[in-house]
């Protein structure tokens, strides 16, 4: 039977030791208490004594190497034969697991970095294997509990920064809605400052406040956020007849064909597909078109991906799925976020001659399609982010788009 020799812990701060040299070689007889190696700790050069009688056996750790404490560096065999019998194993192979009795004493050696962490966190006798370490660090750690013991106990109220902002921005605190934890923070004040002044309902007829649906609230937030976008509009008159006929012929919706023609044109005018970011213009590599859909909950715009690059049939199938998801309220953010171009079609309202739409955050343009008159002509209005598109850019795009629509160039 062989007993492991481990890199000893020789001081309170020692994490690794340098095995300076072996004073014995495999097969040499050693006595308990005899010095068998020299080890350099962080503090001094120390002698490593044998804990028992026997014969030094390999594999021995390399001289002049730094070794984490408690790592097996050699063995003591009970007979010379045993000590010499063992063919030396490659140095790189992890040391064999010590026998049961000693494995309890010498905890498994963690990797060097882990040892570092371990030492920071826990240096207990009978150190636990790393696997059970995290138990020490639950949210309920005593240190954390103590730190949190003196948190403000009352919910509600306003933080000092919020109060300062309320004064500086001259906001009526009555109009502020607190956050989820009941506290009014800077975020709520800033939102109030950027939003339109709240309507003064003091002289209004009797009313009842109802929280809007989540979707409507989100739309309100998004739309309010676009007030920072400098916008302009441009309207064109276009004959829809050909495209209409094509839609009937191929049994596709006119909206889908509009999206397709737009996407193909956008591809030729990549600036329309770009968007302004604080770091610079983001140029997109494919045209994803969002199509506004009216639902009982409010407006939502599912996105068709790569509308210029894929077969119409495939787009038609995608669109069917998206509409279905919309009806069943199953849309995921990945279904309605990230479009580069928007389309809003109010063609089902014949008396609406024309309208313009608001450019949503994340895009630079939205196309508003009104109903066609008896002659098959309709008003197309594009709203643009002026930071990205100038009037002439938009005009050139609309010229090309109108021509493509009138010629029904869907490919």
């Amino acid at each position, binding site marked *: 039977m062989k007993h492991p020799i481990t890199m000893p812990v020789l001081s309170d*701060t020692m*994490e690794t030791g340098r095995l300076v040299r072996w004073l014995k070689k495999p097969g040499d007889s050693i006595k308990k208490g005899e010095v068998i190696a020299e080890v350099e700790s*962080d503090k001094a050069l120390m002698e490593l004594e044998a804990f028992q009688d026997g014969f030094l056996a390999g594999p021995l750790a390399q001289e002049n190497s730094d070794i984490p404490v408690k790592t097996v560096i050699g063995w003591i065999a009970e007979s010379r034969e045993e000590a010499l019998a063992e063919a030396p194993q490659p140095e790189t192979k992890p040391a064999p697991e010590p026998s049961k009795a000693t494995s309890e004493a010498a905890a498994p050696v963690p990797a060097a970095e882990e040892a570092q962490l371990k030492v*920071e966190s826990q240096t207990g006798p009978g150190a636990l294997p790393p696997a059970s370490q995290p138990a020490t660090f639950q949210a309920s750690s005593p240190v954390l509990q103590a730190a949190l013991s003196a948190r403000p106990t009352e919910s509600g109220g306003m933080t000092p920064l919020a109060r300062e902002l309320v004064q500086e921005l001259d906001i009526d605190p009555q109009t502020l809605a607190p956050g989820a934890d009941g506290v009014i923070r800077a975020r709520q004040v800033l939102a109030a400052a950027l939003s339109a002044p709240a309507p003064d309902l003091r002289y209004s007829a009797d009313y009842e406040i109802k929280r809007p649906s989540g979707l409507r609230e989100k739309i309100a937030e998004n739309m309010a956020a676009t007030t920072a976008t400098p916008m302009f509009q441009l309207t064109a008159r276009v004959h829809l007849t050909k495209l209409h006929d094509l839609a009937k012929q191929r049994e596709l919706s006119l909206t889908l064909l509009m999206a397709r023609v737009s996407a193909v044109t956008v591809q030729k005018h990549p600036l329309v597909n770009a968007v302004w970011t604080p770091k610079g213009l983001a140029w997109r590599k494919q045209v994803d078109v969002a199509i506004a859909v009216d639902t009982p909950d409010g407006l939502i715009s599912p996105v068709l991906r790569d509308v210029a690059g894929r077969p119409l049939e495939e787009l038609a199938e995608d669109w069917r799925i998206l509409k279905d998801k919309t009806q069943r309220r199953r849309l995921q953010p990945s279904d309605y976020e990230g479009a580069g171009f928007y389309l809003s079609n109010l063609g089902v309202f014949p008396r609406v001659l024309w309208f313009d739409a608001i450019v949503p955050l994340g895009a630079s343009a939205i196309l508003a399609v009104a109903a066609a008159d008896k002659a098959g002509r309709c008003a197309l209005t594009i709203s643009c982010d002026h930071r990205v598109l100038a009037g002439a850019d938009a005009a050139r795009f609309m010229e090309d788009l109108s021509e493509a629509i009138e010629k029904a160039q869907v490919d």
Partner: protein
Amino acid sequence: MADEIFYWQALNRALDELMAVDEAIFILGEDVGLYGGSYRVTEGLYAKYGEWRVRDTPISEGSFTGLGVGAALMGMRPVVEIMTVNFALLALDAIINMAAKVPFMSGGAFPMGLTVRMPGGVAKQLAAQHSQRLEHTLMNVPGLRIVVPATPQDAYWQLKQAVLSDEPVIVLEHELLYFSKGQVDETLPPPPPHRALCRRQGRDLTIIAYSKMAALAEQAAEKLVAQGIDAEVIDLRSLSPIDWHTCAESVARTHRLLIVEEDCRFAGAGAEIAATLTERCFTQLEVAPLRLGGLDIPTPYNGRLEAQTIPQVEDIVAAAKQLFN
């Protein structure tokens, strides 16, 4: 190119360079000479400068620190090593009643170029009498300067500045930092000894820490990135005076303040930091400052319990998240 050396080597280098040019500097303490210092800080200096400039003292903290006061009064620059901060309790009369008071009581007639170095903090299972942090006691003494270098570079700079200062300076060295490594560039101009250092810039939260906890705070800040929190980490470097300007400027930007200290939380250094920054930055705070400190309990010998009595990286991460609830 600056080389990477141990923290103790940085201190050793600072002492060696100064002693080579200024004969008014001498070291005294228990086992600083022949033995080379318990943490090797004075290694080799005894051989180089002799026993009169590197003096092994008896175990008489009160008197050999007082000796340092006397020598400083007549223009010497003694560097006293107290083996651990815990033994400094025996030298508090010399530090508080003498070093901090005599220049003042004499109407400003005497210099006090005394430096007192002391290792401290929770190391590894040294039990309650050897694991203390005394910054709170010393911070409350006008007339003392206290530096808390956390890196070899700061150890090198701040010890040099301390030795050359005419004010009494306490250098608090964390026992677990002696064998940490870092670059030391002797050619760089040092910042003022009390200047706080921004170890990591961030927008969302200011974490103020010192000594070993500064490194932990930095590790926590890196972990917080994954939680979407961009934390600024300020290493105070000095506990008296404190660089309030750097701290306040940061809090005014982030509006959130977390203080991490190893010392007991009750009436600790963090209490002063939280109180002053609340006063200075009150209208800039989005949430009450949070102090994460050591438990108010003597340090248990048992290793697991010991770890539970002082902040760990995970605690800092959790505490930071609390400020964004």
